[in-house]
């Protein structure tokens, strides 16, 4: 029986061996250090965080016997990944935003007429899409089209009659200012919002609606109004009814940081620049794995039993993995009884 001191030393030695094994593995691919950085997904700025996460030494051998095998598999997977050519590391991270063109020029949807973005992909000489509509009538007067007699469907006139009795007046009063070049938006009716055909509020005070950036509203444009923006409120007026309060804070803590921490230069870079197209495999193979109503939804149907999986992957599965899977399967079966 070894004493604790010896055991500690022995474990320490195992850690060292494990670390060396990791280092040796990484040496095979020094560019990635045991971790394939993907410039397609993460900008260099984000890499330190990743480095941090993988800087944690992994020592799997006695904490979880299966982890040793998974670690090997991960190394193997990393190798496979490199072979598949998904990743093409690049140092060109400073390119300005470019127009994204198809990596496969000349392709097209054979059964469709081209549209603008398709044309970009095709890089062909199709003329611009001409499906623009011409306005020939008033936007906001649906009345000319309200012809229940010609409708092929039963109309609920009793429900809408009140609202549409004067449709030309429907959208004429607005608490909003006209906001420059944006479309003009108008709320319906007085006092500032539409209650539907069921009428106005049945009790309580008149609702307060922001009236834009001027006027007598409690809001005053972008000045955050009259409430304490930094104070966190727990609003519970209706929580008695529903038991579901909510929080309100005038300005979110993140918002106080300004936009800089939210900006990343990858936001204006081509996210697909180093990706190669992969032929779509289609749904057929995937659908077989989906649970659909009416079919068996048992776990054993979704996940092959040990005997099946061992037949399929016996060359890849170690004895330890097989035994562990068998154990898990037995536990599941026992639990489902």
């Amino acid at each position: 029986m070894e004493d604790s001191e010896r055991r500690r030393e022995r474990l320490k030695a195992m850690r060292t061996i494990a670390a060396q094994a990791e280092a040796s593995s990484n040496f095979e691919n020094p560019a990635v250090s045991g971790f394939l950085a993907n410039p397609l997904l993460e900008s260099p700025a984000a890499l330190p965080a990743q480095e941090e996460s993988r800087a944690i030494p992994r020592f799997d051998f006695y904490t979880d016997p299966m982890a040793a095998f998974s670690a090997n598999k991960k190394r193997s997977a990393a190798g496979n990944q490199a072979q598949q050519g998904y990743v093409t590391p690049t140092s060109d991270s400073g390119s300005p935003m470019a127009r994204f063109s198809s990596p496969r020029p000349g392709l097209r949807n054979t059964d469709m007429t081209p549209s603008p973005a398709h044309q970009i992909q095709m890089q062909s000489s199709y003329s611009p899409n001409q499906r623009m509509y011409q306005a020939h009538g008033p936007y906001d007067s649906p009345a000319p089209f309200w012809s229940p007699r010609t409708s092929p469907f039963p109309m609920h006139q009793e429900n809408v009659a009140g609202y549409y009795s004067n449709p030309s007046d429907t959208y004429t009063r607005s608490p909003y200012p006209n906001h420059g070049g944006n479309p003009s938006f108008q709320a319906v009716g007085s006092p500032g919002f539409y209650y539907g055909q069921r009428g106005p509020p049945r009790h309580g005070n008149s609702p307060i609606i922001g009236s834009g950036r001027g006027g007598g509203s409690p809001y005053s444009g972008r000045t955050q109004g009259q409430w304490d923006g930094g104070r966190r409120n727990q609003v519970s007026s209706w929580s008695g009814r529903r038991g579901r309060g909510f929080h309100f804070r005038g300005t979110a803590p993140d918002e106080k940081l300004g936009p800089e921490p939210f900006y990343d230069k990858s936001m204006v870079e081509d996210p697909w620049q180093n990706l190669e197209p992969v032929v779509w495999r289609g749904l057929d193979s995937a659908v077989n794995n989906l649970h659909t109503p009416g079919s068996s939804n048992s776990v054993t149907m979704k996940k092959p039993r040990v005997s099946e999986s061992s037949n399929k992957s016996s060359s890849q599965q170690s004895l330890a993995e097989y035994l562990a899977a068998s154990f898990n399967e037995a536990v599941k079966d026992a639990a489902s009884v």
Partner: protein
Amino acid sequence: MKIAVEGCMHGDLDIVYQTIQHVERLNGIKIDLLLCCGDFQAVRNARDMESLNVPPKYREMKSFWKYYSGQEVAPIPTIFIGGNHEASNYLWELYYGGWAAPNIYFLGFAGVVKFGNIRIGGLSGIYSARDYHLGHHERPPYNERTIRSVYHVREYDVHKLMQVEEPIDIFLSHDWPLGITDCGNWQQLVRHKRHFENEIRERTLGSKAAAQLLEKLRPPYWFSAHLHCKFAAVVQHGESGPTTKFLALDKCLPRRKFLQIIDIESEPGPYEIQYDEEWLAITRKFNPIFPLTFKNANFGGTQLEMQDCQQWVRSRLQARGPKPFEFAQTVPSFDPSQPDSNNSYFDYPRNPQTESLLQLLELPYLLDSVSESRVPTHGPTPLIQGGSSVEYSEEIPIDDADEVEEFAEIDDVETGNE
């Protein structure tokens, strides 16, 4: 045309718009459009919070109400789809799409619009096989079951999108198309999201419905969110077919990759959002079989010919113009000075934008029809006090700055692939 694409909004409109303006200043560019891939959280007031399926600690009045009320105005046109954290009662009002706030357009549970000459389609919600073949039986107020099923993608909406024949330029889905990871560096992905590995290997990560649409529509660009990470892929349709550039983005947090600017060749501006003729024709054709109960649509029950519908819609749009009906408030906005005052109405109103669109298409309003889920035997049950027993099994943790917490919670995640 420069388009900003954002992952999950989670109500942080102020920060996202500030970041976009920062990008514009730094790079000397003008961004024409913002696309958001779901979890927009268009919460107008306290009442809407009841329809938002989030754990209690994330139940927060974010910034959308300011844009709804008019206190703030979106600096660029914004188009969004729904995800699995939404004020579902409000999105239901706008089932066919419409302005959720001035300059902020909801694409609908499924929809296609034009922006300039760019055609943008989208599918709201996430895939769940359990609910996929059901009708839209949920009505507000939601119970603890329907608050989680209302955002599950339905076959009816997917079927409508599958009818689209004219090319789509950009498509949005909240969850990723099933199998999309095959076309990108999934090994890199699982280094950061270890819990995805099994699902990727088993090809169960993602939405089957979105994958079907990807196969059918073959858009040049497809954007998604939901899994709170950035992932790019390039799909080639067939050995010599067209390609789709796929990009999933993160949520809005410091140092996270939640935003991407793309530049698409287009006609010169100014641009505006417009109704899409083919989509309105599809809407007209399939509205008569809109499934409003648990029962799925009878897809063989459509009697109108698509060609006739399109011609009919074309004449309507030529007469009226393609501009969507204007924004209208239907309920009071949250008032921070009177946080208790927002429960002064009871009903769930019809949205005049929806009514006007249906009137234009000569279709009946069906969204408030009584559903099976409202009859007493299936009626709403009170939400669990405090929400402690409510399962959030489809949740991608909103606040996953703490990865340990994320990994702990993610064990319960069903990413829409049951």
